[in-house]
């Protein structure tokens, strides 16, 4: 039961709406930071990742968690009713503490690119670390974006993801209560 | 004359609604219609609203018919819009029409069969003469009843199947699709097709079914069986582990028996077209069965040539709530688009005038004025 589980949104309708608007804005403007709150998830699941999951995931969205986040499964099952799957390729939403291979997630098909997975990746922080140069839809001009905690091969992996457009995985980066998104349409270079 | 922009849309809407309510009520000197009256005395109208509204509730159906002044598409729309807000508590088990409390059961393929032919409350052999006695009102004598216990009534399709003459539908444990939750996608499987037909417009299906009989995708149908009556709805809550009854519904089922010449792997046998509709709706169930069979053309290796066989065409156009909305949306303001068409037409006509006034014939045609290069701006890949 829920006795030993920390609470989800106190006001689900209002908080899910606010969180969605943050994610929508993040997805529409790659690299723009948003701050979320209102939940106390079990570590290592971060506040921003948890809020995004409460907002978007339910029994209709197969969810995949990497090994680092297995401990959060009961919390997510209780608050989202999420169906957790073992095969990353079957996931509509995935949460990871480590990027691993982006190619293990479903990239959609050319006729149905919307069936691609959304990966919520927990990173160390924003504003420091790896400097990226973002360009593409949502950006008035190429923008600089710094993320700590991305693997060395991130740009190469993203390049492979970007070149299969309109297929490709969409990425939501979360660090603590902060969030930014990298939709598949964004081009990423060393910044 | 000064121009004053049209204002006051809000008040116009309120006034229109007030007028509508008054007109719906009609002459206040006459008694107001009650929902039980509608449910009992305009049952076929309520049935149609429930069938196309995809919501089985005769009282709400009666309310919808009353609220819509008997406009059955409008009534179905009211039920749909209500239905969409309802929570889903459980999924029912498949209903068993073989165990139906039959009120009517006829077969056009066997003279007699277990359970017999039961004519039931049908208009079939009424002479269509206006009944002025009905206009006068008055008591209706009770219909004769029999005390003979009702025999079991196996379905004709099962009787034929027992002999190997009828195709067998492979049982499936797969979760059936649901058009009210997921948009149509193609190829559309039969579960989704049948759902669309069951919700579909009676008139549209009637026309399509009729077209198959006239050669547009015919499949030599026989009305194997039509039955109407009450069936039990059961759910099986996981915590109980067994099924419980939650209510009854009246349905009409039609099993069309169609010829099939067989294929390399399947010997010649009969195939089925299936119709199932809420309430008493024989016309709709029969039309549905014809169209269901027609849409199986590709699966059965038949040529797909007729409208009724074109799954995409049938499914995208059978829903009368969608159709009525889009047809009727043409009455919404289109000033802006019409204005751009006007300006466009004026421009095109001016071009023609100019060309006519020029000394040499220079009216553009494909040879003299062809686009050569796609510009950077609008380049098509």
């Amino acid at each position: 039961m829920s006795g030993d589980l920390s609470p989800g949104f106190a006001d689900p309708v209002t908080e899910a709406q606010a969180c969605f608007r943050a994610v929508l804005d993040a997805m529409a403007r790659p690299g723009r930071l948003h701050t979320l709150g209102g939940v106390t998830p079990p570590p290592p699941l971060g506040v921003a990742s948890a809020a995004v999951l409460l907002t978007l995931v339910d029994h209709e969205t197969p969810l995949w968690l990497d090994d680092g986040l297995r401990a959060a499964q009961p919390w997510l099952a209780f608050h989202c009713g999420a169906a957790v799957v073992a095969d990353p390729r079957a996931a509509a939403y995935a949460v990871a503490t480590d990027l691993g291979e982006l190619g293990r997630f479903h990239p959609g098909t050319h006729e149905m690119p919307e069936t691609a997975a959304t990966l919520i990746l927990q990173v160390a922080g924003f504003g420091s670390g790896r400097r990226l140069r973002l360009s593409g839809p949502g950006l008035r001009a190429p923008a600089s974006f710094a993320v700590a905690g991305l693997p060395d091969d991130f740009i190469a992996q993203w390049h492979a993801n970007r070149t299969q457009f309109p297929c490709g995985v969409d990425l939501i980066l979360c660090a603590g209560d902060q969030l930014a998104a990298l939709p598949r349409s964004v081009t990423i270079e060393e910044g | 004359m000064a121009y004053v922009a049209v204002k006051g849309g809000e008040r116009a809407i309120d006034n229109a609604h007030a007028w509508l309510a008054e007109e719906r009520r009609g002459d206040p000197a006459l008694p107001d219609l009650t929902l039980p009256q509608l449910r009992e005395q305009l049952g076929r109208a309520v049935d149609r609203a429930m069938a196309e509204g995809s919501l089985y509730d005769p009282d709400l159906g009666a309310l919808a018919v009353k609220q819509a002044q008997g406009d059955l598409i409008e009534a179905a729309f009211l039920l749909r819009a209500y239905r969409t807000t309802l929570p889903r508590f459980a999924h029912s088990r498949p209903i068993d029409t073989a165990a139906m409390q039959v009120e009517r059961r006829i077969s056009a393929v066997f003279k007699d069969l277990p359970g017999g032919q039961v004519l039931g409350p049908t208009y079939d052999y009424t002479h269509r003469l206006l009944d002025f006695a009905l206009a006068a009102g008055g008591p209706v004598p009770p219909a004769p009843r029999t005390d003979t216990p009702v025999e079991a009534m196996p379905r004709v399709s099962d009787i034929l199947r027992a002999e190997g003459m009828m195709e067998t539908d492979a049982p499936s444990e797969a979760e059936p699709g649901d058009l009210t939750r997921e948009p149509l996608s193609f190829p559309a499987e039969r579960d989704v097709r049948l759902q669309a037909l069951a919700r579909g417009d009676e008139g549209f299906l009637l026309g399509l079914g009729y077209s198959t009989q006239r050669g547009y995708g015919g499949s030599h149908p026989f009305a194997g069986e039509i039955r109407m009556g009450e069936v039990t709805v059961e759910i099986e809550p996981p915590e109980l582990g067994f099924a419980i009854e939650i209510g009854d519904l009246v349905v009409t089922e039609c099993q069309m028996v169609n010829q099939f010449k067989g294929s390399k792997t399947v010997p010649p046998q009969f195939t089925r077209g299936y119709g199932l509709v809420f309430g008493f709706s024989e016309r709709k169930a029969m039309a549905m069965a014809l169209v269901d069979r027609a849409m199986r053309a590709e699966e059965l290796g038949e040529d797909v040539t007729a409208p009724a066989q074109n799954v995409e065409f049938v499914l995208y156009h059978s829903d009368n709530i969608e159709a009525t909305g889009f047809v009727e949306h043409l009455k919404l303001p289109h000033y802006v688009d019409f204005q751009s068409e006007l300006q466009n037409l004026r421009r095109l006509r001016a071009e023609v005038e100019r060309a006519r006034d020029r000394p040499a014939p220079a009216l553009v045609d494909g040879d003299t004025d062809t686009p050569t290069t796609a510009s950077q701006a609008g380049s098509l890949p």
Partner: protein
Amino acid sequence: MMGYNFAYLDEQTKRMIRRALLKAVAIPGHQVPFGSREMPLPYGWGTGGIQVTASVLGQQDVLKVIDQGADDTTNAVSIRRFFARTAGVRTTTHTAAATVIQTRHRIPETKLRDDQIIVYQVPQPEPLFRLEPSRVETRRMHGLADYGLMHVKLYEDIARYGQISISYDYPVMVNGRYLMSPSPIPSFDNPKMDRMPALQLFGAGREKRIYAIPPWTEVRSLDFEDHPFRPINAPHPCGLCGATDSYLDEVVTDDHGGRLFVCSDTDHCAERRAAGHVGTDGVKEAAE
């Protein structure tokens, strides 16, 4: 409103639509199928736009609803009331004061900002439908970016009329990849879509499709180098405010050819008049 959730839709439905919206933003111009619900308004009257608006709207938002550029057309009034009743949000007629703008057939003349969202009502999301009615086929064409059919249509227009004859719902290429219907806005409005700072969302309820254009995204009206895209507008200033750069409605003033051309965007026109701009018919009005 009693008995209904905030903004009418249940949370499960909102989640489904929100997921579709995010995918739509990630794939600019691609039509994402969604489980469109039956709304209490008829299909073809803005059910797609309403579902999108209901899924993005929050208590902090200020909503503007226009139809044909006007806030007071009956369908705009009806939709604005729907949200005022079901969500209790503040509404406005001022473009600049709105955070969410739902529209049918127009883009406001006032430039939209980066903190605004515009939601278009879309009757027919498939830009190829007049050329190929089968959605199975058109989906294949979008998958392959095979837009030869549209190319041929435009080419034939030029061969026949000397120009492209489309005056509204003029097809656009989004981010160089997807052919998209801009909804039945006049081609006059098409250039506003290109690199618009606001997020543009499109909802087609009956056809069960959602699509989007992120801010600053390239949106190009199809044309040819020697037949460039030309937006269409009446060659007149607004009779009321004198604007020469706004899209005009044509009003029939009598039965012997009398016409008055006025801004279709009623908010734009009213603001200009409030700022002292007067058109030729406005002067007459003041003089009487």
